[in-house]
């Protein structure tokens, strides 16, 4: 009954279900990782440093931003810019907190390290009846991590060999589209997405991809207002 490697009964099957749910995302994450690996090497990272960056930083947009800024910006400012790009992880972290009841501290650190856009979205889109969301999240996170490390290492080793004209990086917003569509279930969510998209586009010239944070915050505020208003209407 109790699976030997998991803390709760049936957790092992939830782990494999989460892992399986992530499989369709692999073809989108792999090219993104390769692009991040290539960008780092072209910016002056050695292949070893590029792989260490993936292992220690483990944040695609931040790795791309750092590679773009290297050489013209002091390291401290680059780190600040990547923190802004990564602020959304704090939002994900807060939104997953209710799932993590009873998970021990050491495992929380490990699972927090593995938090990404993709593993978060897969976990939030899990079947409503899923009994072990943390095991499900772990499965998705393990496959995401492996895919990312293999992708960036491949990119770092291939280096400049790949033609820049291939639009591989477009796989990233496309996979986000596939994740967004099922989330748009209620009016407040549609409004949050719409307002966020408009602001993120309008504020595109802001430095450090602040337009992303500004858009998301405005979108959430708009969605929250409508949600409150609908509640008052009863």
């Amino acid at each position, binding site marked *: 009954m109790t699976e030997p490697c998991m803390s709760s009964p049936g957790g092992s099957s939830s782990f494999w279900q989460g892992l399986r749910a992530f499989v*369709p*995302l692999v*073809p*989108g994450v792999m090219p993104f990782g390769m692009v991040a690996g290539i960008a780092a090497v072209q910016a002056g*990272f050695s292949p070893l*440093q590029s792989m260490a*960056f993936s292992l*220690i*930083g483990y944040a695609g947009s*931040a*790795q791309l931003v*750092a590679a773009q800024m*290297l050489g013209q910006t002091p*390291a*401290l400012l*680059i*780190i600040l810019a*990547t*923190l802004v790009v*990564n*602020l959304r*992880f*704090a939002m994900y*972290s*807060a*939104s*997953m907190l209710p799932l*993590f009841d009873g998970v021990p501290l050491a495992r929380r650190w490990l*699972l*927090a*390290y593995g938090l990404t856009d993709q593993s*978060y979205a897969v976990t939030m889109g899990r079947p409503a009846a899923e009994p072990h969301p943390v095991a499900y999240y772990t499965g998705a996170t393990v496959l995401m991590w492996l895919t990312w490390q293999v992708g960036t290492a491949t990119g770092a080793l291939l280096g400049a060999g790949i033609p820049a004209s291939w639009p591989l990086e477009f*796989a990233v*917003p*496309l*996979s*986000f*589209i*596939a994740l*967004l*569509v*099922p989330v748009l279930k209620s009016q*407040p*969510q*549609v409004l949050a*997405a*719409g*307002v*966020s*998209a408009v602001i*993120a*586009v309008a504020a595109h010239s802001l430095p450090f991809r602040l*337009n992303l*944070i500004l858009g*998301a*915050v405005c*979108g*959430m505020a708009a969605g*929250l207002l409508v*949600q409150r208003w609908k509640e008052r209407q009863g």
Partner: protein
Amino acid sequence: MTIWLLILGVGAGSLMLRASFLVLLRGRKLPEGVILSLGLVPAAVLAALIAPELLYTPGTGTFAPFGPRLAAGLLAAAVAWKTRNLLLTLIAGLGLLLILD
């Protein structure tokens, strides 16, 4: 040397943000408004990640509405809506971009 400092700095910062609520603030009761807005996080953040990629040319950063990227993105959204299948969504979007670009 600078690169190694950068790697460690980005790593520490990213881990702190990811662990912020899951580890460091665990057990705190969150205000109701915060919990309500958390349900809106995926829609808002994903939309902000997507929209600029469809309307701006990468690299140059020039505003290019009604370009091949928007068309490819719209087709991908339609396929995602109909099939809920990521691989088909990627094939449709990348395929149209390759044809138009």
